[in-house]
């Protein structure tokens, strides 16, 4: 018998919780396992290196990367302003999370009615600049940004409000103007939650389907991202769809792992250090 003098928590969660907890975990793990069982590993390299698959993978990585960048450029200012507004914060917050609760297809339709040829912004763009958004890679990026940005804004907004503005107030008394306070205090303090927000938005953008197919359509190498390719292949060649699904899962896990365990842990914490 070995005895361990290391201190450990004496608290334990009730045993009764273990059953639904295990069921919950199984609900996530088992379908993925089911997918794994269906993978035709002999054909896997061939299926994944087809031109259509490679195009879809490249397009997915590029568009998800661009939309994440867009999420940061727009979402960080939005979250900072949102967390500090004096009035109407609740209403604004409800508006910002709308894409979260809205079915993505509805989001795609909404984008279409704004930026489509018959939408007012789309009509103006077409007439004034000769730019048409639907069916372009830009439309994919827009659709992904639309659905992914709330994740970033919410993780930042929560962190800012939990952290309060004491550091910012101190910085102001030290002679720092609002911009210096933002760049040298607010932003650095927000890096951990920002990183988790980035991971979440990227993952969401990578998996985007409904808004993309509605607003951007589906064309190889232009708008057909991995999820759309999976959907298209499910019609024709299920083996290929399964292989691509596996690829999608691997990419998603890679993103989470690359982001680091600390960052993943912060995804839910979102508090300032």
């Amino acid at each position, binding site marked *: 018998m070995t005895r361990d003098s290391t201190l450990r928590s004496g608290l334990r969660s009730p045993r009764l919780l273990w059953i639904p907890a295990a069921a919950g975990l199984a609900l996530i793990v088992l379908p993925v396992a089911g997918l794994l069982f269906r993978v035709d590993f002999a054909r896997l390299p061939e299926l994944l290196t087809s031109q259509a698959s490679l195009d879809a993978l490249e397009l997915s990585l590029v568009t998800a990367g661009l939309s994440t960048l867009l999420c940061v450029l727009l979402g960080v200012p939005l979250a900072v302003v949102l967390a500090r507004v004096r009035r109407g914060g609740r209403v604004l917050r409800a508006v910002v999370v709308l894409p979260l609760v809205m079915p993505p297809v509805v989001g795609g339709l909404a984008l279409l009615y704004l930026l489509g040829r018959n939408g007012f912004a789309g009509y103006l763009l077409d007439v004034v600049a000769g730019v048409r958004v639907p069916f372009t890679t830009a439309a994919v990026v827009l659709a992904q940004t639309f659905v992914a940005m709330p994740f970033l804004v919410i993780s930042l907004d929560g962190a800012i409000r939990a952290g309060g503005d*004491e550091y910012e*107030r*101190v910085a102001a*008394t*030290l002679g*720092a103007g609002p911009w210096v306070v933002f760049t*040298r205090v607010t932003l650095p303090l927000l890096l951990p939650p920002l990183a988790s927000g980035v991971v979440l938005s990227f993952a969401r953008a990578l998996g985007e389907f409904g808004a993309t197919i509605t607003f951007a359509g589906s064309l190889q190498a232009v708008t057909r991202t991995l999820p759309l390719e999976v959907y298209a292949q499910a019609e024709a060649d299920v083996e290929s769809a399964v292989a691509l699904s596996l690829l999608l899962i691997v990419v998603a896990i890679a993103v989470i792992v690359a982001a680091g365990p600390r960052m993943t842990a912060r995804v839910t914490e979102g508090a300032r250090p």
Partner: protein
Amino acid sequence: MTLRAVVRAARGQFRLSVELSAERGHVVAVLGHNGAGKSTLLDCLAGLLRSDETSVRLDGRELGSLPPHRRRVGLLRQRPLLFPHLTVRDNVAFGPRAAGASRRQARAIAGRWLAAVGAEEYADRRPDQLSGGQAQRVALARALATEPELLLLDEPLAALDADAAPAMRALLRTVLRSASKRVTVLVTHDPLDALALADTALVLADGRVVERGPTQRVLSAPRTPYAARLAGLNLVAGEAVEGGLRTPDGDLLSGLHAEGLEPHTPAVAVFAPSAVSVYPRGKSVPGSPRNTAEAVVAAVEPHGPVIRVRTRASGGWAGGLTADLTPAAVADLALDPGKPVTVVVKATAVDVHPASSLSAARSA
């Protein structure tokens, strides 16, 4: 450098109305209980809170309309609030950098101030590697590094443990004394801090100044119940009479008149809790003390090394008093709330001072 501030602000039911002035090199202590408006006053001076009726003049320069970062004020809070993403040195260099100094200049300034507060050895550490006392020293250096014309200290010692507080108090004393032209406003609820650091003190209650004057005078000879309670002293209001003070009920409290006290003018009798003796009711009191009265125990609670006994409020002077007893005495007398007692105060321990007009109305 002269500070002349008029702060008038409202937040819901609470109204703050304070006039404050101080000469260069001086330290003003703002005393008051929680909720008296001390921190709000400080935030108004710093510009973190604003109201249209607030005017802050430093040597004739009006700060009231300026945002915080243009006011040249330094603020030290109860918590150090060092920026967690910067080293100690960069924390202190933050102000000079914001003021436009180059990286090298700012770091040099930071080094000087870290040395001044005896924290240069921590320069390369992260804030989370410092103890509370060390962090507060660094925070002080950071506030001073901007060379503020107005230094605002908001309970700077309140969050420090008993070991760290005296050293920090001594440091503040050195730093504040050496200031040539700075005006310092120190918010505290601890009379010791005020006595150690401040030249003048004002007592804030419900958003208004109820007493002001030289710190020592305000705390040793309080004219209002607020100040007395802050100073931890007993205060009985009444009228100056030969040999002591006549309470509104007609009781005589014997004591020593302060110089210049005119008979038949409003006065307050002040005595320390340690000067109060407590006996069980009905038992004979040794000697023949002149100040004897009956009271009922309201509360018994530890207060440092002694036990503080509070009597129930009543019409007589012995109501609402505090008395400091040894734990052994409390046990001997079996003092519990509700117990009838006789309290005795030696006449030589009672000082009778002229009352300010405010103290005439005795309020809770």
